[in-house]
């Protein structure tokens, strides 16, 4: 007699067979919950991620830089929307998602709680922060949940310009005056370690990772992705003639990868807990933007109502 497979076992076998899960399919409640949390946090990160950069749009050093930065920030808004839509296919409610962000209940990537004091930070963000996000998002293009994977494919297509515009900023600063080169170096110093933290805790300390890997939501571990990013970024820093602020960084012949120094995880958890430099500022800015958009939403509602009434009247008259 063959053993009857449970729903969970059948689901696991389906995922193991590299099949995509679609919205109305049966899925374990924990799979749904994990995805809603991950996708909405990812969406919030895109939305909050606009703030540190928006800070520099009006002060970009040239029109070329300004249009690029504006387009990048606009893309991030789009990314947030693709992700919220993907979360909604799992039964999440948009209004709740937005409310949870505004109230501070929801999490977003802590990298966006760091300040952007100089123009070079915009270069470093595009190069490193978008670079790290790309490593993660390229992996997620193969995630098991269809709508999430499709959103990632769209996002990845748009991300590569983000990283290139950032690296180009770093290039012009690194090749500029000694002061400009120093600006670039300082920005690299500021963003290097927080960028490595973007991949999350080390594998031995990220308890939920194993289940996510089993469900093929994640396809690579935090440490694997971090290593990939480090190996890829080092030659890019060398080309800029800038120094990565890690004296323990060295090529490990045996592993075929670079070894790196200890990450300050205390700082990481502090920022997550709300004690980063800009946590309060970011939430305040997001709330302000939302409140100031109230009249736009009201006007859109009024217009929609008016149009609907007019249509109804026309129908009545005909």
């Amino acid at each position, binding site marked *: 007699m063959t053993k009857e497979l449970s729903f969970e076992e059948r689901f696991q076998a389906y995922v193991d067979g590299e099949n995509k899960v679609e919205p109305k399919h049966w899925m374990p409640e924990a799979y749904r919950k994990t995805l809603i949390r991950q996708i909405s946090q990812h969406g919030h990160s895109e939305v909050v991620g606009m703030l540190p950069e928006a800070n520099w749009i009006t002060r970009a050093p040239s029109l070329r830089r300004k249009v690029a930065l504006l387009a990048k920030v606009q893309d991030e808004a789009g990314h947030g929307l693709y992700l919220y839509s993907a979360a909604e296919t799992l039964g999440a409610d948009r209004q709740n998602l937005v409310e949870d962000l505004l109230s501070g209940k929801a999490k977003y990537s802590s990298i966006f709680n760091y300040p952007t004091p100089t123009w070079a930070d915009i270069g470093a963000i595009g190069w490193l922060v978008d670079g790290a996000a790309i490593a993660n998002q390229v992996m997620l293009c193969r995630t098991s949940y269809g709508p999430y994977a499709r959103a990632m494919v769209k996002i990845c297509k748009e991300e590569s310009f983000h990283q290139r515009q950032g690296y180009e900023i770093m290039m012009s600063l690194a090749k500029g005056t000694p002061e400009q080169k120093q600006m670039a170096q300082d920005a690299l110093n500021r963003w290097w370690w927080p960028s490595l933290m973007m991949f999350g805790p080390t594998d031995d300390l990220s308890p939920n990772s194993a289940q996510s890997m089993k469900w093929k939501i994640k396809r690579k571990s935090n440490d694997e992705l971090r290593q990939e990013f480090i190996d890829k970024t080092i030659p890019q820093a060398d080309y800029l003639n800038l120094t990565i602020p890690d004296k323990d960084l060295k090529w490990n012949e045996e592993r075929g990868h670079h070894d790196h120094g200890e990450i300050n995880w205390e700082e990481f958890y502090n920022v997550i807990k709300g004690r980063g430099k800009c946590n309060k500022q970011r939430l305040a800015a997001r709330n302000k933007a939302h409140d100031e958009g109230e009249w736009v939403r009201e006007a859109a*509602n009024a217009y929609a109502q008016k149009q609907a009434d007019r249509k109804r009247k026309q129908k009545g008259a005909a």
Partner: protein
Amino acid sequence: MSNKDNWKIWEVFIRSRNGLSHKHVGSLHAPDAEMAIKNARDVYTRRSEGINIWVVPSDEITASNPDESEPLFTPADDKVYRHPTFYDIPDEIGHM
């Protein structure tokens, strides 16, 4: 936030160029069809991905039930005679 702000969901379909069908690209929220088209333009066609947009209220779409996909679709699986390779035509006839 008022309840009125929870605009309904619209599914967005885009024709990337003439000669191709509209293809589903995602969804968005809007208070009416006109705004849905405007939002779709900003959210889904920032890089000339399309030349025409359809928006359909999500709740107007009727979908087949994935749990019933077996009785719905498997009957087609054993009808090999619907495919050209089912028929033996000698090679000298050439392409047919």
